[in-house]
């Protein structure tokens, strides 16, 4: 499809071919968003983060909606957001209404996701919605942006909305081919950009990025710096299909043991481990692939941004 205008700073920057970074914020069950705003401020301070994703009930948990934190982060911190929206909890009427609301609040990036099933979350007996799937959500946003209508063609008073829409892609997918075909379908329906899930394997990541090149849409490769050994362990135990490399895992474990009592030293050691692993990783991606940048999912680990990104 023909490229739609860049409505967000994110898509503008991508189209200028600047290698960029996005971060991630995760509102949980909270009414006080100061920790989210603090994380956003830390990201903003680095001057390296173009926008931050705000998650929508990850792992199927019932969390604070993503629209309000998106708005507050943009208003109070001045950091652009990527509004994650899953099709798990809302039908096409609610999605449409929320997107209109978000656009009024100045949200300009939407990441269309299926969402982890409610059976995985903390309200397991919920009725999952899935009226649309994520591709159809992209279709809905496209109609709102390009035609100024809902899915049925009913016009929006005041015309088209201004928003760019992205989709996810999974470099750990196995088999790979249906994943690639599916991403192609999403681009055809109107995705402006792609953010990938996390990858720890540089060869895999490069190969995946190569395969995505044919769609001619900017891709941000997802990376997941690990704040402590527990998270790494959780990853390996609970997230099938992704594994933290053995060396990285071992180093984190050593740091945990070595500085059991000294939190400051432990943090320094862990930060160094992450920087040693991810800085060359990012450099390699920047040098050898056409990726538009990195989506750095260092949730609640904002102190890493400054030292990790200082050489970019």
């Amino acid at each position, binding site marked *: 499809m023909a490229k739609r205008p860049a409505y967000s700073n994110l898509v503008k920057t991508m189209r200028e071919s600047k290698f960029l970074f996005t971060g991630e914020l995760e509102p949980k069950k909270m009414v006080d968003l100061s920790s989210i705003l603090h994380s956003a401020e830390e990201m903003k301070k680095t001057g390296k983060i173009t926008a931050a994703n705000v998650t929508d009930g990850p792992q199927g948990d019932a969390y604070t909606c993503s629209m309000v934190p998106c708005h507050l982060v943009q208003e109070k911190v001045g950091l652009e957001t990527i509004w994650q929206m899953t099709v798990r909890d809302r039908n096409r009427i609610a999605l449409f209404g929320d997107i209109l609301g978000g656009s009024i609040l100045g949200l300009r990036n939407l990441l269309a996701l299926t969402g*982890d099933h409610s059976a995985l979350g903390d309200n397991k007996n919920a009725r999952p919605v899935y009226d649309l*799937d994520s591709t159809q959500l992209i279709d809905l946003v496209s109609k709102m942006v390009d035609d100024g209508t809902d899915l049925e063609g009913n016009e929006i008073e005041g015309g088209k909305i201004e928003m760019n829409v992205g989709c996810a892609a999974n470099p750990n997918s196995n*088999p790979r081919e249906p994943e690639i075909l599916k991403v192609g*379908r999403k681009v055809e329906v109107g995705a402006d950009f792609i953010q990938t899930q996390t990858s720890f394997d540089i060869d895999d990541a490069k190969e995946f990025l190569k395969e995505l090149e044919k769609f001619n849409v900017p891709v941000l490769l997802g990376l997941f710096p690990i704040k402590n050994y527990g998270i790494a362990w959780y990853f390996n135990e609970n997230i099938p299909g992704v594994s933290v490399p053995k060396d990285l895992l071992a180093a984190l474990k050593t740091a945990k043991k070595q500085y059991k009592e000294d939190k400051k030293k432990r943090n320094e050691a862990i930060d160094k481990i992450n920087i040693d692993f991810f800085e060359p990783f990012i450099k390699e991606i920047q040098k050898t692939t056409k990726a538009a940048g990195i989506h750095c999912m260092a949730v609640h680990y904002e102190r890493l941004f400054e030292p990790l990104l200082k050489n970019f």
Partner: protein
Amino acid sequence: MIITQQKNIEEIYDMVKQYSKILVAGCDGCCQPPRSINEAKVLAQMLELKARSEGKELKWKAITVLRQCDDRIAATTVRPFIEQYDAIVSLSCGLGIVMMNRIFDNILTFPAQNSMFGGAENNAENTFAEYCETCGECLLGVTGGVCPMAGCAKNLSNGPCGGTVTGKCEVGGYTHECAWVKIYERLKKFNRLDLFTKYRPPRNYRNWSSPRFIEINKSYTNEEEPKKEEK
């Protein structure tokens, strides 16, 4: 067929404990596992025992019906007994139980079972499996014969989602096959990935919204009939 699971005896007893004479009706229709005359008898005996343990006396009769979900069959089979009983306990699926309550509206028919799904008997895997959710808009023609509604935990029309790992689904702890990987494999095998790639627009959920009716036994004619007004 309709796959059912019997409720536990406490729950059934709780529904009928205030009655002293009950009719327990099995169903010989498609309900699986079979809930016929013998199952009806056993259930009645269990309810009698429960009652006795509470110092009550429960009279019962166990019968079976060819199909409780057919009004004519259910009416002719059950009507002769109705007068003598205070309540009916039915071993059919929900269809039969609703039908019995409709036909015999002077007596309550209680469910002895939970109706689970319309299922197929897969002996190779020792399961009753839900292969179709009766969505009213069949996609099997574009999905290589694998149902993305019954097979996919998220009812996706354009899968797979990110929750698939080596062909298994995130729901159920990566033990069930991901319908969309299966769909991909089937279509690839028949050289029809064009069907996989094609975008399927949002579904028409009016076809899948209760209550649903289809007119039957209507007449046909070659004479001109007055046109019905559009709804």
